[in-house]
């Protein structure tokens, strides 16, 4: 045990102490001899590359993985959980990286999942609805608690899942990439709530790839690399470069600039228009949207979560039908009745939610090949060709583990995201629409994606990047349109722009 841990022991038992934790999946080590220490009333930031083992350690704490090596002490007492329920009973609440809400239940039921208030043995509906409304309000969410969860945007669902855990009374709260679908004001509000939770003496583990967020909200930061804990340090003494150096290695400290400074947009107004939307509207989601995507240019569509940009992207891919307006691809007017027609017209789409893009129980290569099967085989499958294609992408995108037969469910979140992108890169589409393309990726992987997408642009593709993360749009786009409440309110082209100006416009 290291010095800090001993110091902590002298101060009294820490809230949570993990000692010598090792865990492997089918012979592959995910965690090697990890010690981890969480104090009462602390926000502990956890960072590391994709696949470093962050989620695995947290799942052990939350009782999801029951088989591991090592010890866990809570308030100095030995703990061993057989299931997530055990952990919950011991006061551990976790928001998983993948949304785990129940789309068919109402918002209120989701907030009170597993502990609905009852009155004389019956569910106390009015109490539940009122309770949910109040809890959500403190996170600044204004939704009808009786609305079905599935009808809400993914960002709202994420907030509601956060509410469930934050207000569950858990003493240890684990948040695995809780802000990946949130826009900046919501993130700030969440941080306020987290600080409040900390003040009440509870402990929070906060995993994120947004190092600025980590450094602004946490008291202590632990860095993981390759299944090992590299270092734990108090936040006051460190900066972003220091963290990146320990996360990925030296020479990468310049990654993920903050974009607070000015960025010059390299728009190409003379390039041919590939996709053109005219006065496109979809009931309630967005209205009167006109935009052009040019070949060899990356168009950024920025807007806060829930401003209609997600629905717009789906409409362009034929998943939603526009109520009015027209769409033309490469000069031809098109009306898509399904996604297959959009794909045939040369549109590729990566949705914001990995779960709606990937087949978890299938190997990586089948995930990659599904969208191009029609191009590489007519009647008979050609698994060898599929694997070759997948191998190329796995190498090009640096997907870990580099095994195309590995089950997708075993990949870490960021690597899954890369697989979702790889699906469309075999045959060049005309228009590539990316919704939140770097969600859940580490700084290195984000940089990879930026390079890949720019490479595609340079090959003449029209790329549309839709995101609620200003960094994503700023790092990629040559031209930016800003959406607000379902309408395009501003376009930035051929000028210099900064994060602040972008946020102001939205």
């Amino acid at each position, binding site marked *: 045990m290291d010095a800090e841990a001993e110091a902590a022991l002298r101060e009294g038992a820490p809230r949570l102490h993990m*000692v010598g934790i090792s865990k492997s999946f089918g012979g592959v080590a995910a965690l090697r001899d990890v010690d981890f220490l969480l104090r009462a009333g602390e926000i502990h930031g956890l960072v590391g590359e994709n696949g470093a083992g962050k989620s695995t350690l947290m799942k052990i704490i939350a009782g999801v993985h029951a088989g591991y090596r090592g010890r866990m002490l809570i308030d100095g007492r030995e703990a061993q959980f057989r299931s997530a329920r055990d952990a919950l009973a011991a006061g551990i609440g976790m928001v998983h990286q993948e949304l785990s809400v129940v789309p068919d239940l109402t918002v209120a039921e989701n907030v009170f999942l597993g502990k609905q208030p009852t009155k004389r043995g019956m569910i106390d509906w009015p109490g539940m609805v009122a309770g949910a409304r109040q809890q959500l309000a403190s996170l600044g969410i204004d939704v009808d608690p009786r609305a079905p969860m599935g009808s809400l945007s993914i960002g709202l669902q994420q907030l509601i899942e956060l509410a469930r855990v934050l207000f569950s009374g858990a003493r240890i709260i684990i948040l695995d990439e809780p802000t990946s679908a949130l826009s900046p004001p919501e993130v700030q509000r969440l941080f306020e709530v987290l600080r409040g939770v900390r003040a009440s003496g509870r402990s929070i583990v906060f995993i994120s790839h947004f190092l600025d967020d980590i450094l602004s909200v946490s008291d202590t930061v632990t860095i993981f690399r390759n299944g090992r804990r590299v270092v734990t340090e108090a936040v006051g003494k460190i900066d972003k470069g220091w963290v990146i150096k320990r996360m990925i290695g030296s020479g990468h400290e310049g990654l993920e600039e903050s974009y607070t400074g000015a960025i010059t947009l390299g728009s190409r107004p003379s390039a041919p228009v590939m996709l053109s939307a005219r006065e496109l509207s979809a009931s309630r989601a967005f209205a009167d949207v006109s935009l052009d995507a040019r070949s060899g240019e990356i168009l950024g569509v920025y807007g806060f979560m829930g401003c209609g940009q997600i629905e717009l992207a789906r409409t362009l891919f034929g998943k939603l039908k526009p109520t009015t307006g027209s769409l033309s691809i490469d000069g031809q007017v098109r009306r898509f009745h*399904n996604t297959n027609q959009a794909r045939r017209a040369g549109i590729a789409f990566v949705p914001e939610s990995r779960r709606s893009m990937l087949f978890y129980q299938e190997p990586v290569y089948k995930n990659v090949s599904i969208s191009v099967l029609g191009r590489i085989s007519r009647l008979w499958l050609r698994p060898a060709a599929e694997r070759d294609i997948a191998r190329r992408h796995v190498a090009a995108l640096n997907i870990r583990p580099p095994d195309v037969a590995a089950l997708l469910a075993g990949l870490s979140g960021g690597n899954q995201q890369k697989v979702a992108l790889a699906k469309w890169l075999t045959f060049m589409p005309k228009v590539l629409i990316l919704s939140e393309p770097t969600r859940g990726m580490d700084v290195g992987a984000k940089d990879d994606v930026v390079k890949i997408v720019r490479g595609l642009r340079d090959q003449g593709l029209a790329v549309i990047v839709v995101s609620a993360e200003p960094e994503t749009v700023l790092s990629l786009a040559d031209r930016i349109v800003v959406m607000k409440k379902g309408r395009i309110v501003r376009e930035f082209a051929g000028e210099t722009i900064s994060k602040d100006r972008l946020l102001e416009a939205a």
Partner: protein
Amino acid sequence: MTVPAQENAEAQPSRVGAFIRNRIRNIAPFATLIILLAFFSIASPSFFTVDNGVNVLTQVSVTGVMAVGLTFVILCAEIDLSVAAIANATGIAVAYFTLQESYVNIPNIPLPGFAAIGLALLVCAILGLVNAFGTTIISIPSFIMTLAMMQIGAGISALLVRGQIAYAVPDLVTTLGSGAVGGVPWIVIVLGVFLVVGHVVLTYTRFGRYVYMVGGNREAAEYSGVNVKVVLGAVMVISAVCSGVAGMIGVAHFGSAQQNEFDGYLLDAIAAVVVGGTSLFGGRGGIGNTIIGLCILGVLNNGLDHVQIDSFLKILIRGIILLVALIINVYVQNLRDRERG
């Protein structure tokens, strides 16, 4: 101060453990089959013989052909409750278009054999298309749509035979249903062909891959540009046509076409698919599983006859086996979901 790394109670799962957990969907039914075989072989000397083996296969043939189509549907996470009704309607249709003996008093339309078979196939294909239309275009849940189709199939059957029994079917159908070649009943060969074709389509063709992907994650299939509705529609039609063929050879096998002839077969066909380990949630399983499921069902039915068991108890035992298989099926799914975390 060092703390010895202590083995957790459920220590690191070994490779063997992981392998078994991944394959339990296939291992559990296979083990069930072996146990049943061993049990009946010991309990009855007349059970484990070549003749009886052929018997078992013959007995499951009609169920088996239906189960092939149903496998496609269940792999897509849908259900088809109309298989037995469509089989019945098709079997009666083929008799309706065949010249019957004079004592059969049905106002039918005798046609040449091939026309009769063609029309009967058309009937089941159309019923399948109606199922497909209802589930994909109108978006009626397949459970409800095929429940309605079950009634429609029964209605067609009733209208065509009007309470009578027809006996004659085209020669080809008679041969396939009740003939034999070199000691092997044709009906077993038909089953074999359906199983092989079903397996090849599911494993080696693009369409088969789409079936698994649509069952595994429908939304993801759609976002990958797969025409999900076409796939779902196609499996409904495939299921109906398989049922139709099963109905025709079934009629020939039993020697008569009448109403409610296949009523018990709906449950058997579903049981064969599910007991074999194909997931009711879609995306997992296949014809291999269905084969094992069929064998379990066949061995169970046939073996219980050999050990002279109370025939009422037989029904209960079958029910219990089905329940256990369903429990395993759902349990395995939960196990996987938990792995995924």
